[in-house]
């Protein structure tokens, strides 16, 4: 009997004829054949739904085969066409009352599949009967039908008390019924937001008793439900474990894995380690046995073993050989086995493992081979005793000359070099034989790193690098970064060999390459080399942070969650189910007095101790103990007064930090090449070795500073969030850490530290400050600024200005410079200001060019290029004549002129002189001498700048004597922040809410205005818009007769009062708060919040433009109610919506979010918690034209990341509005 003949396309009308044929068909054979054709066509995807009338007519045929086919047809088509289902209702009603239990059950089962109102309605009553049917088969089918019903409409199940009936079924005499009822209850609670399944020990015991009588699937459902038992006492957990241990012998791998899951869950509640050990011993054999199942189950088992091994490092000891790969294992099994092998490798068995891995490295599958080679490298790093043998094995593999093996081997050897410096350099020669075969970026980068690192030991390193340089511009960024660093190392180690290469590569890096990372690094090197080669040497060639093999470890909380998901997809992907299942609930360990979370430590010999922060800091402290001492001294210095503190200590520490940063792209990325995190999908927490280590070095600093104030994870999060940023930003970050270190000596509060991290963690690309922002402040502050920092700072800004650096680098400038001032201002808390300034600046970088062409050009320097204009605008201490040639083409100056850096130095000196009138003139002079001497010694000084130095020194010392103090801008700062939340840096820097006021930025700088510098910002206080400005007179003569005029702008902002400033004396500053009104003439500006302002005074008329944050236009008391919000949200079309992601929020609590937003007239209508996020629904109203904004702000539970979706009828304004919210959210 063959049905295959039905597998051909049938025409609907032919089939209809067959179904309705009047031929004699006493045994319904013809009908059956016709139905088979229909079902076959359905399977092939042909639409058979037009036949529904005829098919339903067959429902009455008393033949069970025909009936089953009709049911199948109904399940397939009824949903799409409700009328089909409606016709069938009568047939169903007959069937649910059929005396045959099989038919009753089938009807109930089928009706549950058909999600059509009428069918569901007519299901409810029979279902209630069937749940109490005397036949267990009907009851178990009905239990499932309840679940189906709840998926259709949850409320029906609750209203009709089906849940209670399900609960009653838990006590049913038939184990199959119990199992299905349990399964249904479990899933209903998984999907329902408000039903939570909780089983007590009594029910649990009953269920476990039923286990013995269930079929295998029922056992799985019951075991699964035991996850909803929270044992209150240790003995409860032990009982459960004991009673389900026999399940480990079950032949169904599903049962075994779910039993392991329950046992693992219960083990968290066991009080005594002694109880755990025998249990653990019993877990190993079943796991190994599962490896004899089908390959798919093997794969699942292996993935889970990885999790269990991390949770219980002692299981599966001595089982290593069971994981050796068979030749014909499927590739996924092989790869998973390899991971387990690596985890099980210890000092004792490293040799066997190595032999095995070497064997794998000759197999055919490329992925497998690569992973095997990489594993050898990991073992070298993980087990020091095996390192020699690993390196030998790798060398042997390189000798095979198989292309991908060689490349992979070189990548891991790079890591080995990192881990064990000065041990295996003898093999470099062998490596160098294979230069030509390297075509993959990672391998090339690794090789280049090696050459750079050992440039002094490789005779022809310059030739080799030169060869690599041939394709520099075509190489991917990874290789370019490596080349850049390597060439610089070469130059530092062997100046003669590198002197031809360095200018070439620096020029390419800074001018030809698009990647901001590379340009930034290029600039750093360039400045470093041109400023102080000795310094460059210490920075570039400093010790690298150690790398470890711990990167493969999962985060502990994630691990805990995943162990509760053993056997599931989530355990395979190593992702919490919430990451890929929309409705999934998190599974956590229920709180109970018995919750112990015991762990059993790994045997000490078999594993390296985890390199945690304390060990890292210890090891570091050995290296840099001297530095720390210096730092501690330096911590105290700021307290003693604003004396210029010992700059060397900072220099050293920055050396250390920046070196790790500079090398990050090559050697430092060792952690990134870690293949063990997750090779299927990216792991949720790609914790990077190098990153962590970097963080540790910061921590270390922190400990040195305030005697062990612990960093909390907030800082870590900020750090991780920043992961994708360029090395430069990391520099910013590191230095920010240092800045806060200084602060914390006064207020040792980890929060301060965190916020510093967060500040540094600003997303580089989302914010584009004009590079001028931080400089004036750095200058203005009465600071003992360590000159190293200062040089960095100012040279950076010059660099930025000079070669049209992109936003990213400009941003990192601000980071660095911000830190500079942070270090400087340890006495008055302005460490964070620059960040804030930078947030307030919204002008995108395209603006300068438009500015250049605008009417305001005249206000700027006469250079034609927009960027140059900006450059000069942003360098208040430069005369334009000085800056222009440098910025025009700094690299033409192939002898690495220090010119660019010199102005910076000069500023430093003048600063320290000017700001410290009380300082001992002798020591001051001494420092200046030192500096000058250094400059001269560096032999790259050009005459130009030396004059600058001399003049500024003399000028400033005279100033210092003449004026009482030079901290004009400092007083300004204090005033400016008088009303704001960060008036001091005490431990509650976590802010009390106040309206958001962007910090003042430079509107006009002293160069364009013959010495008048204007800083300003816009604020809204008590419903009034204000422009708060500081006028700083840097010229020699008094300036007076101020007047201000606004050009027409989008919202008609204009001064509400004349500018009432009298005379500003030389070297003095005046603060003014100018009330603004929105009654002026309007004109559409681009961007909309742009505003052009003219200021007239005795020094002349100055024009400038700036942008305000939109929040100053938001109306008070505009809060709408939820109803309005919902109505407006729904009525606003989606195309008027836009979403925006904000990182690095600065909130201390959810409360804080609300307050801050409210304070700035972004009113919270409602808030709710959705999964891990807090959703705020907010509205705002523009006071000028009444535009309404409705937003949904989702804030992640760590208060770090927000997604703002905004709807408004005024779509043009949405970006500005969101930007304003972002600024509010990220401000301190």
């Amino acid at each position, binding site marked *: 009997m063959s049905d295959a003949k039905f597998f051909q396309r049938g025409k609907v009308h032919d089939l209809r004829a067959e179904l309705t044929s009047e031929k004699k068909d006493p045994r319904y054979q013809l009908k059956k054949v016709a139905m088979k054709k229909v079902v076959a066509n359905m399977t092939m995807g042909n639409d058979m739904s037009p036949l529904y009338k005829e098919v339903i007519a067959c429902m009455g045929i008393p033949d069970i085969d025909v009936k089953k086919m009709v049911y199948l047809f109904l399940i397939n088509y009824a*949903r799409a066409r409700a009328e089909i289902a409606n016709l069938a209702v009568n047939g169903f009603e007959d069937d649910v009352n059929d005396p045959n239990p099989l038919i009753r059950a089938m009807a109930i089962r089928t009706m549950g599949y058909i999600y059509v109102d009428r069918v569901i309605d007519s299901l409810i009553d029979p279902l209630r009967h069937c749940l109490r049917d005397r036949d267990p088969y*009907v009851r178990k089918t009905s239990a*499932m039908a309840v679940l189906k019903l709840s998926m259709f409409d949850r409320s029906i199940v609750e209203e009709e008390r089906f849940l209670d009936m399900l609960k009653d079924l838990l006590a049913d005499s038939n184990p199959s019924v119990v199992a299905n009822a349990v399964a249904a209850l479990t899933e209903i609670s998984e999907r329902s937001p408000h039903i939570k399944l909780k089983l007590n020990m009594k029910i649990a015991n009953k269920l476990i008793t039923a286990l013995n009588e269930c079929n295998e699937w029922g056992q799985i459902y019951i075991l699964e439900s035991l996850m909803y038992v929270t044992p209150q006492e240790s003995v409860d957990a032990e009982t459960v474990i004991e009673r389900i241990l026999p399940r480990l012998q079950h032949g169904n791998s*599903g049962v075994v894995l779910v039993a392991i899951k329950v046992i693992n869950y219960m083990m968290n509640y066991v009080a005594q380690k002694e109880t755990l050990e025998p249990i653990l011993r019993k877990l190993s054999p079943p796991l190994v046995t599962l490896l004899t199942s089908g390959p798919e189950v093997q794969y699942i088992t292996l993935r889970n073993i990885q999790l269990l091994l991390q949770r219980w490092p002692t299981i599966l000891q001595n089982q290593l050989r069971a994981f050796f790969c068979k030749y014909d294992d499927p590739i996924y099994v092989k790869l998973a086995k390899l991971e387990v092998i690596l985890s099980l490798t210890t000092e004792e068995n490293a040799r066997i493992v190595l032999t095995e891995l070497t064997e794998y490295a000759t197999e055919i599958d490329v992925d497998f081979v690569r992973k095997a080679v990489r594993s050898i490298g990991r073992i070298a790093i993980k087990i020091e005793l095996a390192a020699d043998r690993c390196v030998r094995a790798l060398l042997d593999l390189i000798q095979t000359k198989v292309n991908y093996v060689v490349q992979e081997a070189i990548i891991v050897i790079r890591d080995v070099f990192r881990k064990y410096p000065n041990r295996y350099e003898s093999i470099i020669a062998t490596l160098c034989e294979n230069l030509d075969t390297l075509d993959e970026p990672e391998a090339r980068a690794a090789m280049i790193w090696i050459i750079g690192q050992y440039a002094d030991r490789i005779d022809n390193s310059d030739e080799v690098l030169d060869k690599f340089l041939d394709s520099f511009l075509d190489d991917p960024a990874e290789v370019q970064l490596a080349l850049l660093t390597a060439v610089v190392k070469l130059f530092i180690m062997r100046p003669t060999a590198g002197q031809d290469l360095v200018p070439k590569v620096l020029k390419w890096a800074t001018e030809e390459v698009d990647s901001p990372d590379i340009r930034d690094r290029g600039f750093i090197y360039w400045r470093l080399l041109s400023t102080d080669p000795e310094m460059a040497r210490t920075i570039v060639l400093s010790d690298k942070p150690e790398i470890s093999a711990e990167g493969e470890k999962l985060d502990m909380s994630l691990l805990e969650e995943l162990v509760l998901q053993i056997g599931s*997809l989530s355990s395979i992907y190593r992702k919490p189910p919430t990451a890929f299942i929309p409705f999934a609930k998190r599974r956590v360990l229920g709180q109970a007095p018995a919750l112990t979370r015991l762990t059993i430590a790994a045997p000490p010999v078999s594993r390296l101790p985890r390199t945690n922060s304390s060990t890292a800091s210890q090891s570091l402290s050995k290296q840099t103990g001297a530095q720390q001492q210096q730092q501690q001294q330096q911590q105290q210095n700021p307290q003693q007064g604003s004396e210029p503190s010992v700059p060397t200590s900072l220099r050293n520490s920055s050396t250390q930090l920046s070196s790790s940063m500079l090398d990050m792209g090559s050697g430092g990325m060792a952690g990134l090449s870690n293949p063990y995190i997750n090779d299927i999908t990216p792991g949720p927490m790609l914790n990077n070795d190098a990153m962590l280590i970097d963080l540790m070095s910061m921590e270390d600093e922190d400990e040195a500073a305030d005697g062990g104030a612990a960093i909390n994870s907030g800082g870590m999060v900020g750090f991780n969030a920043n992961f994708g940023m360029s090395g430069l930003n990391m520099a910013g970050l590191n230095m920010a850490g240092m800045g806060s270190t200084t602060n914390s000596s006064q207020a040792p509060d980890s929060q301060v530290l965190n916020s510093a991290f967060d500040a540094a963690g600003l997303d580089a690309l989302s914010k584009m400050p004009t590079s001028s922002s931080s400089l004036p402040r750095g200058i203005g502050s009465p600071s003992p600024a360590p000159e190293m920092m200062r040089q960095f700072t100012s040279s950076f800004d010059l660099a930025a200005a000079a070669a049209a650096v992109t936003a990213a680098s400009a941003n990192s400038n601000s980071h660095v410079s911000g830190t500079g001032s942070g270090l400087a201002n340890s006495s008055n808390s302005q460490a964070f200001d620059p960040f804030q300034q930078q947030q307030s600046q919204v002008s995108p970088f395209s603006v300068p060019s438009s500015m250049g062409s605008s009417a305001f050009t005249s206000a700027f320097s006469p250079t034609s290029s927009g960027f140059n204009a900006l450059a000069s605008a942003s360098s208040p201490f430069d005369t334009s004549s000085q800056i222009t040639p440098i910025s025009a083409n700094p690299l033409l100056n192939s002898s690495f002129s220090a010119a660019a850096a010199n102005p910076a130095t000069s500023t430093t000196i003048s600063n320290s002189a000017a700001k410290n009138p009380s300082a001992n003139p002798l020591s001051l002079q001494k420092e200046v001498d030192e500096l000058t001497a250094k400059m001269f010694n560096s032999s790259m000084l050009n005459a130009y700048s030396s004059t600058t130095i001399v003049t500024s020194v003399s000028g400033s010392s005279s100033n210092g004597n003449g004026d009482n103090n030079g901290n004009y801008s400092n007083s300004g700062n204090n005033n400016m922040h008088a009303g704001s939340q960060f008036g001091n840096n005490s431990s509650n820097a976590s802010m009390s809410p106040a309206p958001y006021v962007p910090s003042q930025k430079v509107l006009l700088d002293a160069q364009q205005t013959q010495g008048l510098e204007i800083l300003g910002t816009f604020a809204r206080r008590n419903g009034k818009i204000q422009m708060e400005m500081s006028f700083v007179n840097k010229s020699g003569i008094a300036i007076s007769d101020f007047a201000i005029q606004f050009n027409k702008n989008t919202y008609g902002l204009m001064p509400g009062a004349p500018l009432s400033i009298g005379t500003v004396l030389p070297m003095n500053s005046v603060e003014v708060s100018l009330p603004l009104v929105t009654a002026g003439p309007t004109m559409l500006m681009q961007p909309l919040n742009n505003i052009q302002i003219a200021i007239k005074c005795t020094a002349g008329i100055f024009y400038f433009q700036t942008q305000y944050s939109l929040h100053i236009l938001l109306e008070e008391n505009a809060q709408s109610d939820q109803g309005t919000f919902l109505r407006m949200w729904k009525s606003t079309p989606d195309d008027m919506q836009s979403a925006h992601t904000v990182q690095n929020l600065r909130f201390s609590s959810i409360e804080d979010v609300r307050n801050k937003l409210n304070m700035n007239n972004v009113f919270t209508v409602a808030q709710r918690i959705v999964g891990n996020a807090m959703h705020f629904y907010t509205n705002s109203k523009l006071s000028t034209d009444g535009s309404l904004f409705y937003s949904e702000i989702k804030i992640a539970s760590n208060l770090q990341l927000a997604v703002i979706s905004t709807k408004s009828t005024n779509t043009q304004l949405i970006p500005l509005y969101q930007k304003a919210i972002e600024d509010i959210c990220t401000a301190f």
Partner: protein
Amino acid sequence: MISAVFIYNQKGEVLISRLYRHDVKRSIADVFRVHTISSPTASRSPVTTLGSTSFLHIRYDNLWLCAVCKNNTNAALVFEFLYRLLGLCVSYFGRFDEESVKNNFVLIYELLDEVLDFGYPQNIEVDTLKLYVTTESVKSAVEPQRVTMQATGLTTWRRADIYYKKNEAFVDVIESVNLILSAKGTCLRADVQGQIVMRSFLSGMPECKFGLNDKLVLDREQKHSGAGRECVEIADCQFHQCVRLGRFDTDRTISFIPPDGEFELMRYRTTENVNLPFKVLPVVREVGKLCVEYEVLVKSNFSQKLAATNMVVRVPTPQAATKCRIKVTVGKAKYIPEENMIVWRISRFQGLQEASLTAVADLVHMTKPTVWSRPPICLDFQVLMFTASGLLVRFLKVFEKSDYQSVKWVRYMTKAGSYEIRI
């Protein structure tokens, strides 16, 4: 749980499509075809997740069985279900291929409706299902109530009314030896996976007890009897669901009511004291670039009274090999170029014997020299009445109300699992 089950043929055409939940549509079948079946990296993972939809598949004889899930399902359960479904089809139609699926598609739909309810596997016992999911030729005359009791009852795997004139039980102990021997001759891994397959033709509801020379059991007994006997240390074992696990856990008794006919009673694993039935001493030399020389010596390592049958030794050759000159002392050897190996067949290999193969493979000169990955030599064989683990059945007792006499037969067989000798 499982939202849909599809069966595809080799080309990716849907042969069977059954949706269980409304969170997927029929069109999801195409997604799997596009992403997995037609993808060159098809077999890189048995689990594919796209968005929130997961596809778990197994392959069998050019067919793809795929289960679609929308939640964080128990993956092991899904695969076990798919294996079981496959077994079910095989026992219904004798085989499982495209033709048999097409021939029986209505029946498969009926089975799928029965074995999965809303994606939850229900009873998949062939014996019970055959009572009420029937092919047309076999009509079941059993009363529905009996069927339902059977399908939900305590022993879903057995009907109560079985009667045999002659009550017999056959026990097959089948062991697969897995070996990985390194090129230097050290044993990297040797273990035995044993299977005890029982064919029971017993009337009524027989209560069986089964005993092995398992070390744990014997240890306990020795305390009483003091007799020293050969015993085997079983690393781990798993049982058919008919075995009462609770009993086994407390006193290591294997007691059960067997299903009718053939079933796998238990699976076990031993890693200690494995008697390897064959020793292989290979010498493989790459002479220059144009020639590989082989000397493979195979020794049998079991009693002279026994013999291995269907022995096959597969000796790999490089891809560049053009021809092979082979000499063997026993059996026949042939070079099979498409598989890159020499296949040496020995129909009967007596215990404590030796056989050798010498061969020279000539290689063609390749423009681009590739390194030969040197796959292992693989052995295939069967040895009757020999167990590599040393396991023996000590007793099988059958108790039944009617107290009939039963005849029991035991057979032992050792075969090659993955018996690999690296070269």
